[in-house]
């Protein structure tokens, strides 16, 4: 071919290209009508509009980790200009507080509570309910990723743990009811005069089973261990509170039925979850330890027991977790009557001394002389307690009047449960606890 012809074809080819170059058909299917930015902005607006849309705001029962913590009920009322009103049943302060929120783009569109309010109480590294959570608080999040809507609920996932959290439309009644959750909180936590031990009793319609219910009221989480060694069931669950009940998560399963709503029964001071066909689960309180020991037997008189001495030593044992609040309250009350430099330094229990005596001895700091209360001992074999009975004081009545309340617990007519504990405090001495059978009094002592 001649050069001229090549040139001609080339020109024609270029010309043809010009004519077809601008065809719009790229054959790529458009997944979306809008650009990513448009879609993100639309999603942000959708979430914000949704948050603002509910007349009485939103309610969320937040279980941060249902394997070790209970649930906390929060109410939110979103306001224009990035403000939010919030209340929580984290503690008995259920007032409404105002703070700020933002719709931020995290791994997806999310709502973030950007200045401190009640929800942040769950995310305070310095406020943790169990030793394992030191530095981690209640494992709470306050940035929630928007995953859409479901039957009117807003479905979020938490930012750190990616757990589902639903915002349910709140009612006016929810705002009225929230402060009443504190009543349930008080009922389950009790106070210093409430019985020390909790039991879970399940009824499968034919038989009942007793469980020692070890409940951490701050974590709102409990572990129920069967008291019957032949029955191996155990439960781990947390509670969220309503004005009338405690709601368990995960559910307590008895004979295949999932029991969650433990309704408070005031006359009996119990929480009862009822299923069908006689199935139920009950949480009750008792002054008697769920597991009774025979440790008291080695203290009894007249059966050849060696002399033993047990000492509550204030400097080392006042802060022991095994002292009940009621015990500390009585120690404080007795101390408050003494001059500033004088305090109870020891409460010692002497059994079967060489002189064949039993007595309680109170020792003091600041040069105050000891006071001794002589007692006789006897056994309640059924309830497994040792009963200390008054046999006279070493000082006149007016001199020991300030010890009377404290002393009355130790010589209470139903006796004391004695338990040799497995833990140690500061020293290698064996720890014994003495628990009143008629009140929530428990004192910790060293075997001396």
């Amino acid at each position, binding site marked *: 071919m001649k050069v001229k012809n090549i040139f001609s074809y080339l*020109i024609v080819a270029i010309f043809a290209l010009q004519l077809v170059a601008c065809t719009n058909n790229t054959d790529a299917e458009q997944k979306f009508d809008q650009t990513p930015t448009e879609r993100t*902005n639309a999603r942000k607006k959708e979430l914000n509009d949704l948050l603002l849309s509910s007349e009485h705001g939103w309610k969320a029962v937040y279980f941060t980790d249902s394997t070790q913590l209970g649930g906390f009920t929060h109410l939110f009322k979103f306001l224009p200009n990035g403000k939010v009103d919030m209340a929580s049943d984290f503690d008995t302060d259920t007032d409404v507080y105002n703070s700020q929120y933002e719709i931020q783009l995290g791994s997806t569109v999310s709502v973030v509570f950007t200045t401190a309010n009640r929800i*942040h109480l769950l995310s305070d590294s*310095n406020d943790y309910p169990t030793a394992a959570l030191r530095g981690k608080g209640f494992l709470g999040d306050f940035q929630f990723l928007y995953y859409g809507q479901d039957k009117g609920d807003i479905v979020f996932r938490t930012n750190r743990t990616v757990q589902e959290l639903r915002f349910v439309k709140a009612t006016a009644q929810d705002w009225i009811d929230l402060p009443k959750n504190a009543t349930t909180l008080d009922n389950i936590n009790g106070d210093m005069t409430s019985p020390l031990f909790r039991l879970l009793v399940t009824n499968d319609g034919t038989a009942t089973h007793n469980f020692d219910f070890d409940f951490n009221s701050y974590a709102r989480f409990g572990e129920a261990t069967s008291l019957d060694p032949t029955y191996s069931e155990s439960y781990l669950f947390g509670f969220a509170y309503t004005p009338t009940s405690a709601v368990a998560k995960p559910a307590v399963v008895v004979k295949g039925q999932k029991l969650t709503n433990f309704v408070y029964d005031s006359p009996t001071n119990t929480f009862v979850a009822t299923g069908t066909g006689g199935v139920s689960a009950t949480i009750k309180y008792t002054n008697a330890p769920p597991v009774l020991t025979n440790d008291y037997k080695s203290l009894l008189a007249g059966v050849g027991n060696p002399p033993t001495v047990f000492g509550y030593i204030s400097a080392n044992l006042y802060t022991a977790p095994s002292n009940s609040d009621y015990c500390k309250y009585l120690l404080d009350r007795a101390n408050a009557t003494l001059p500033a430099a004088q305090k109870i330094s020891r409460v010692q229990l002497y059994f079967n001394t060489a002189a064949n005596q039993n007595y309680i001895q109170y020792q003091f700091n600041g040069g105050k002389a000891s006071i001794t209360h002589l007692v006789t001992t006897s056994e309640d074999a059924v309830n497994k307690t040792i009963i200390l009975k008054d046999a006279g004081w070493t000082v006149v009545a007016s001199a020991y009047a300030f010890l009377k309340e404290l002393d009355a617990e130790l010589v209470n007519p139903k006796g004391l449960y004695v338990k040799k504990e497995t833990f140690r405090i500061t020293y290698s001495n064996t720890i014994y606890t003495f628990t009143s059978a008629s009140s929530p009094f428990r004192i910790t002592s060293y075997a001396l």
Partner: protein
Amino acid sequence: MKLLKKYKLVVLGAVVLTFTGCAHEDQPTESQLNFEQPVRTDLDNWIITNYTNPYNIEVRYIWNQNTVDNTRYLFPPTVEKVKPALEIVKKIWLDSYSTIGGADFVKKIAPREFVLVGGVNLNSTGTITLGLAEGGQRISLFQVDYIDKKSRADVSEFIHTIQHEYVHILNQTKPFDEQAWAKVTPSGYTSSWYVESVSTSRELGFITSYARLNIFEDFAETASMILLSSKAEYAAILAGITSATGKAAIQKKEAIVVQYYRDAFNVDFYALRDEAQKNTDAVINN
């Protein structure tokens, strides 16, 4: 028509098509990005007037997960607590350096960003992180919600962070005499400083236990502890040390700090200390 003329026409046609062919394409529409100025609260305006405009320091108190460690359980400050905390920082740190070092001192050498956190940064070992400085650019201040302005201990602990971190920033601008410093207490540095008691550390010639991490922390702790204490308080710290070598070591380090401030920045360190104390008293008593 000659062939060349035909070519000319064809080329002309092609050029016309090139310029007009794509004319029907969509024109860019308005930007999707949000350029609106956020609504400023009184607090925001106060920050702009007192920090951003004069010192070019940004203060972040609104939570943003990108400025904090997401593995820590922290939370943003309560809005009402932000201004009191910033006033303490301004009075004791900014004003003291401005008065003694000159009005432009902090403007030239300063962190560019403060991140305020409401809660305590408790580590799982039980130690508490009071503050963080990242590359001399960002300083994170914790416990903003818990400062009691009337408590000297609270104020000192809070201001300790910024004084300490700022010494690092100064060191990054002009290094101190590291060789001389390292010779003062060559042994005694340890990565498990947090199990050591302060009194033991002082006997060994370190002002605090944290100073024992390395010579840079040692320098920052020595300088910031002197700035935090009055002349009498510092003298009491020294008087409480029984080991003569320990006391001499701390005094030797103090001398290096004083010389560093004089040589590198022409700042009288003791005058700075006195000014900081005067301003601390002013904060606590007002």
